[in-house]
């Protein structure tokens, strides 16, 4: 049992998952991840480098991955905006690597020390063009540790950049935790004697291992060679990856639920907000309201199957988030009118209190009862 800060847990989770390369640029509230890595890595023979900015930090991470490292960086909103071009590059080059974004109030410099959940859609759509995004989140120091390790694992399995979304409160919060043992995910290797194509649904083989791979951000096919007269191969590989993610949805989707059975109102929350939501649900239950909680740790790919199922049973879904209404959009799209979906937003740098969420849930139920059912 140890008293650990959220950011420290990320660093420890990364190292436990085999991370041996960190390139970054300091920014509140993510800085301590970097500072921890500066202490942890040299002693383990891993690489720590402070780059000149976030663009180069992301680039160095991708370069390092191609050098065979398990590489990561961590930043906050302004830096995350700057990393978007390279997240797209990592996606199209199928590079396993991890990006942590500890969210603070935005846009721009905003509220640099206060928590927010304003980068949730950016984690999905922040880079130009289309990609299949994987993004996790965490609501406790322990889950920050676990989800960091899981991010590395997913990045290996799908050969994609994986984003972990934290927030200023979780990053700086200390909790007493028992850190579970984590093994580095095995890196798939080509079967001996085979020489599969370097891209598509084939193992990741870094440089220096005897292959002269061609890596490019241009549209290409499984061979890696550019195909810019038309993007059919690139589109096909993207759709194949999306299919794989859909097939594996049950494994990829991390969540915990409380009292979902028979819940008339479901609070769908994620990250730090899920903690207040849990307390809110307990308050509601104590009040005799049939409330339940879906606490999502996997935000992207969007857990359609889960949300659709919940929408089947509930009368209403409340989506509290520390922004003016982001994740509620895909939730509403997935629900397709099966039940009412309501946002609960706040972007003033404060957390929701349990009372606020409980009150919003009560109001929503009242409106639902009184109101006309839409759709």
């Amino acid at each position: 049992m140890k008293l650990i800060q959220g950011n420290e847990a990320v660093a420890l989770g990364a190292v436990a998952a085999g991370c041996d390369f960190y390139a970054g640029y300091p920014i509140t509230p993510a800085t301590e991840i970097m500072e921890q890595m500066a202490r942890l890595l040299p002693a383990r023979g891993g690489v720590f480098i402070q780059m000149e900015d976030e663009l180069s930090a992301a680039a160095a991470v991708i370069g390092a991955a191609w050098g065979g490292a398990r590489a990561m960086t961590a930043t906050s909103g302004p830096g995350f905006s700057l990393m978007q071009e390279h997240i797209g590059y990592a996606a199209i080059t199928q590079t396993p690597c991890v990006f942590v974004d500890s969210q603070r109030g935005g846009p721009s410099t905003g509220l640099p020390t206060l928590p927010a959940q304003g980068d949730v859609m950016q984690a999905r759509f922040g880079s130009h063009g289309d990609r299949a995004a994987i993004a996790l989140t965490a609501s406790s120091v322990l889950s920050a540790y676990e989800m960091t390790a899981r991010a590395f694992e997913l990045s290996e399995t799908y050969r994609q950049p994986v984003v972990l979304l934290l927030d200023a409160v979780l990053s700086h919060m200390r909790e007493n935790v028992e850190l579970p043992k984590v093994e580095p995910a095995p890196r798939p290797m080509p079967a001996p004697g085979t020489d599969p194509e370097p891209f598509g649904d084939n193992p990741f083989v870094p440089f220096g291992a005897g292959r002269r791979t061609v890596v490019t951000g241009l549209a290409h096919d499984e061979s890696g060679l550019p195909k810019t007269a038309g993007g059919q191969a690139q589109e096909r590989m993207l759709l194949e990856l999306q299919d794989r993610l859909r097939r594996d949805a049950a494994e990829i989707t991390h969540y915990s639920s409380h009292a979902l059975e028979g819940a008339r109102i479901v609070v769908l929350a994620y990250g730090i907000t899920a903690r207040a939501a849990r307390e809110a649900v307990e308050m509601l239950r104590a009040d005799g309201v049939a409330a339940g909680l879906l606490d999502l740790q996997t935000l992207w790919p969007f857990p359609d199957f889960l949300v659709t199922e919940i929408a089947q049973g509930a009368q209403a879904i409340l989506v509290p988030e520390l922004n003016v209404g982001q994740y509620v959009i895909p939730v509403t799209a997935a629900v397709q009118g099966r039940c009412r979906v309501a946002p609960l937003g706040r972007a003033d740098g404060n957390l929701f209190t349990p009372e606020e969420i409980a009150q919003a849930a009560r109001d929503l139920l009242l409106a639902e009862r009184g109101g006309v059912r839409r759709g």
Partner: protein
Amino acid sequence: MRRDPLRVRLSGRGGQGIMLAGTLLAEAAMQDGLHVVQTQSYGPEARLGAAKSEVVISTRDIAFPEVLVPDLVLCLSRDAYLKFGRKVADGGVVLLEEAILKDVPDAKGQVLPLRATARDLGNELSLNVVGLGALVAITQAVSRDGLRSALRHRMKPEYLDLNIGALEAGFALGEAIQARA
């Protein structure tokens, strides 16, 4: 004070060691086998003016991490009192460094000569640890041994003796106040 959860707010001027005090208190609670969450104010504004560190201690899992209405409050500076010291739960305890009274004569809470005590120990910088000792002596928020071992855990060896001294002085101060009350 054995509320469950127990919500503690420590506050003071930037540089008075409020963050460390919060971590020590949390660490002590952990040593006591309790669940604990510690949060703190952050950033350039917290360097000057008023900074706070909050600790929630409970026998159960703690959902909401921040302190909305504290059960215990410690204020080491005037600005900290004005910003963070005037809200407390019914039946809660507010402890104030006595210098605050100079600027805010009508400040509400138990007044303690924390700085004077620290100065007497030869190091004004241990004000935070003296305050923590007094808080624990008065409220039994955590065990004294828990706090002692937290100090041993978090302090560089060269500063340990000094701080153990400050802690004990804080305990004594708290006891004296208790006795008087």
